[in-house]
């Protein structure tokens, strides 16, 4: 469905992505793991067109999209929930969601979609007329996801949806991600919470300083000693694995 082929992206003179290739198959949850600065966010921003790659190709549903501007990429069916959420703080929750459907014309379908989003995020229903800036972090995250869903995307890019949220809310968000996936939406998830991400994802990639260093089915990565030590904070000791407290 989505394929990155040897993508290189620069921030000024810094080569943030040094030839990233990855594939996302339809209906899957794919996760992109990595430490801070590994290039996870850069990868997502390159896919959705906020950054344009210097080299390489991106294709989505068989079509090249690496030179398409972001406002057109969303029309092709890619929704992006960016890092930091980028909601519209001085628009109401309702207006934020309506803007999510900016590219769509059919009012009836938009209404149905809105109802579905509000059903997945009941907390937003009660806050419809509030300014989005007054919401809590978790609510804003839900709004950002809801807004992306309003474009009726086939692929959703999620950038650190659990960042800064309380553990219970993280559970809630991951539950919602699974639900979105179950209705047939493909998901590319970037997470620092590797443990949660690996449990939910079908397939995973590990990014280190702008390169994919490891890829496999998530079940295999969960057993991989390098992944366990570096990303799950566990270390083999006397043949036994022990979790460090406070691991990410």
């Amino acid at each position, binding site marked *: 469905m989505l394929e990155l082929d040897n993508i290189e992206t620069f921030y000024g003179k810094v080569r943030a992505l040094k030839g990233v290739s990855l594939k996302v198959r339809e209906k899957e949850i794919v996760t992109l793991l990595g430490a801070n600065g590994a290039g996870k966010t850069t990868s997502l921003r390159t896919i*959705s*067109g*906020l950054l344009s790659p210097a080299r390489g190709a991106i294709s989505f549903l068989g079509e090249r999209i690496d030179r398409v*501007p*972001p*406002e*057109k990429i*969303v*029309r092709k069916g890619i*929704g*992006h929930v*960016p890092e930091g*959420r*980028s*909601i*519209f*703080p*001085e*628009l109401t929750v309702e*207006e934020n969601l*309506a*803007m*999510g459907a*900016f*590219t769509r014309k059919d009012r009836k379908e938009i209404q149905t979609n809105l109802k579905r989003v509000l059903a997945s995020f009941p907390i937003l229903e009660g806050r419809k007329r509030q300014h989005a*800036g007054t919401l809590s972090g978790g609510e804003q995250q839900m709004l950002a996801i809801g*807004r*992306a869903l*309003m*474009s009726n995307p086939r692929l959703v890019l999620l950038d650190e949806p659990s960042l800064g949220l309380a553990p219970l809310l993280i559970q809630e968000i991951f539950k919602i991600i699974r639900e979105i996936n179950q209705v047939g939406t493909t998901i590319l998830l970037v997470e620092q919470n590797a443990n949660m991400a690996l449990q939910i994802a079908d397939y995973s990639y590990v990014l280190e300083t702008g390169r994919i260093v490891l890829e496999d089915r998530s079940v295999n990565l969960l057993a991989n000693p390098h992944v366990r030590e570096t990303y799950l904070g566990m270390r083999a000791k006397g043949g036994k694995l022990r979790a460090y407290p406070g691991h990410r």
Partner: protein
Amino acid sequence: MLIQVIVSGIATGCIYSLMALGLTLIYKSTEHVNFAQGEMAMISGFMAFTFLTYLRLPLGFSFFLALLSSIGLGLLMERVLIRPAIKAVHFNVFIITLGASIVMQSFAGLVWSYDQFPFPSLFPKKYFNLGTVRLDTLSLGIICTTALLMLLLFLFFKYTKIGTSLRAVSQSRDGSLLVGISVRHSFALTWAISGLVSGIAALLIAPVIFLSSRMGLVVINGFAAAILGGWGSIPGTILGGIGLGVLENVAPYYFPSQIRNIIPFAVLVGVLVIKPTGIMGEGRKKRV
């Protein structure tokens, strides 16, 4: 008599509000300060003048064409001067618009001379008595037109999809792009609306202060009004404009008449010293 002075102050204030509104719309969506706002208004005035006197078109039609050309001028400014500088810092864009204002002023001087011209109004200059107060239709016309325009703009920004998308762009550029709003088109549309607003301001004020290539200086009052009302606040432009207009008209009533010219600058300095955020300003909000 005082009430009469206040009413004409409100009328002048409406013009300042429109200037301030033009500045604020552009500032809110692009964070640029357009120093050429007054000259855009002046050119619109001269366009109407040209259609009327040289092409001898009817008044209403001339005004309509002038407003179209003010929209065109806004679009042209955005396309030719601002968009190529999209990566420039705000200060550079400010200098670009300052340069544009000087070019437009000199251009107008070359084409239409540096003279002052009387300018017709859509509203007849008639007086009538309301109780003991003597009011003139010109002032009332200015006030009503401004009120109507403000109302229409409010409805547009609040209730239409495009209007909401313009507000969205001013709040998060990434967010807008990701939901499919073209930020470039939004900027162009903002400049078009701002051009239209300044064009309307020109057609309203020219009958009062005469048409001249120097009338663009009214932008100073626009800045003073916007800062008095709270820089970046749309309701603030209305309050600030009217406040400034009334102050300017009432002060000569008690003090020597030259005080009128000092008022916008006094207000600017006063607000910046006493309450830099103005009446409605919220200051700079930092988001986490």
